[in-house]
């Protein structure tokens, strides 16, 4: 992009920000996310029923990024996150543990077996009687079925694997269940979402529900949707998992974050995922 266009983009954003009070979207509203010129993703849609009182429309974080960041995600060769997806694929086929198995030994081709997984997690696991994230399921498989060491919950290995699993669902609408056995966890997540915390005394909603589209310092606040996770962040050139982002956000408001992988963060992940029901799974997305 030329310098001139980028200046023009910034000017356009600033102008839109000044007329769009009340937290409306300010980036290029007409931009459409099409991957590799083939796969069209839903980046804005009507809010799910449980959100109707607070939001009319939900927007993917992609909508709020600058044009060149948006473009990076539109081509898998330009998307730096895809390098890590490849590494996840290598790990998928790698035999590990006492059972002498790889992921592929049971699940074969992830394009078949992992399709739709990212869209419906976190999900209730009936046998274990607990709510489980994709990360939790990966480690369950590694320890119980492969006899291998679990990955650290937030780690390069885990992010690669989760990104590879997410890509198999790319384009499918997020559709996590919020009732039945997960109802209690969902309510707990909602409670956490709306509870102010930290020295700055902010809740998730303070920024991502009441002020999305407005500036926070030099950056646009998004709605905090997690349909694009794991996300490749340009600021430190690595993949970020959902709960690592939660952790970073709470640290930034100078609160005391829950542990990554804790039941509290898993409940929050379910609730935040449910706020994006209807948006396309984008992982691995590109963000700043």
């Amino acid at each position, binding site marked *: 992009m030329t310098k001139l266009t980028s200046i023009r983009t910034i000017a356009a954003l600033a102008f839109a920000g000044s007329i769009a009070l009340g937290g409306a979207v300010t980036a290029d509203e007409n931009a459409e996310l099409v991957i590799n010129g083939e796969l069209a993703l839903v980046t804005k849609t009507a809010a799910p029923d449980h959100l109707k009182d607070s939001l009319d429309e939900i927007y993917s974080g992609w909508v709020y990024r600058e044009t060149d960041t948006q473009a990076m995600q539109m081509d898998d*060769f*330009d998307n*730096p996150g895809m*390098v890590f997806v*490849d*590494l996840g694929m*290598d790990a998928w086929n790698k035999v590990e543990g006492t059972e002498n198995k790889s992921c592929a030994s049971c699940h074969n081709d992830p394009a078949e077996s992992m399709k739709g997984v990212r869209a419906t997690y976190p999900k209730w696991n009936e046998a274990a009687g607990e709510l489980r994230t994709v990360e939790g399921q990966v480690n369950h498989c590694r320890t119980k079925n492969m006899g291998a060491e679990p990955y650290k919950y937030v780690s390069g290995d885990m992010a690669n694997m989760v990104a590879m699993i997410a890509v198999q669902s790319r384009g499918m609408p997020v559709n996590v269940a919020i009732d039945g056995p997960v109802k209690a966890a969902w309510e707990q997540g909602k409670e956490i979402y709306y509870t102010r915390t930290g020295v700055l005394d902010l809740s998730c909603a303070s920024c991502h529900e009441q002020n999305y589209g407005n500036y926070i310092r030099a950056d646009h606040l998004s709605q905090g949707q997690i349909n694009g996770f794991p996300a490749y962040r340009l600021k430190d*050139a690595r993949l970020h998992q959902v709960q690592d982002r939660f952790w970073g956000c709470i640290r930034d408001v100078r609160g005391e974050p829950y542990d990554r992988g804790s039941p509290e963060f898993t409940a929050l992940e379910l609730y935040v995922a449910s706020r994006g029901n209807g948006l396309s799974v984008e992982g691995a997305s590109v963000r700043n």
Partner: protein
Amino acid sequence: MADGVKPRVKAPAKAAAGEAVVLKTLISHVMESGQRKNKDGSLIPRSIINRFTCEFNGTMVVDVEMHPAISTNPYFEFEAVIPATGELKFTWYDDDGSVYNDAKMVTVG
């Protein structure tokens, strides 16, 4: 050979004669600078890709020398004029002596 090294190239399969086509290349590589220290204070040995070349039917298109302080997974994007049907050969040279290759056919007409 270093772990997780995988060359990638994106080139068009077809081009008009004399057209300048965009070539994108990326190789996943740690690009360890040799200046960092590990926890016990000893230097982590340098391990980088030190040269990258692209040839078209034996003619050199680019020849790049690389040094430490180039970030991980080096990405090069450049244009090449394609005069006739032929093969683009891409070569990366690792510090440890490994050589990684990729090739793409470009058809004119």
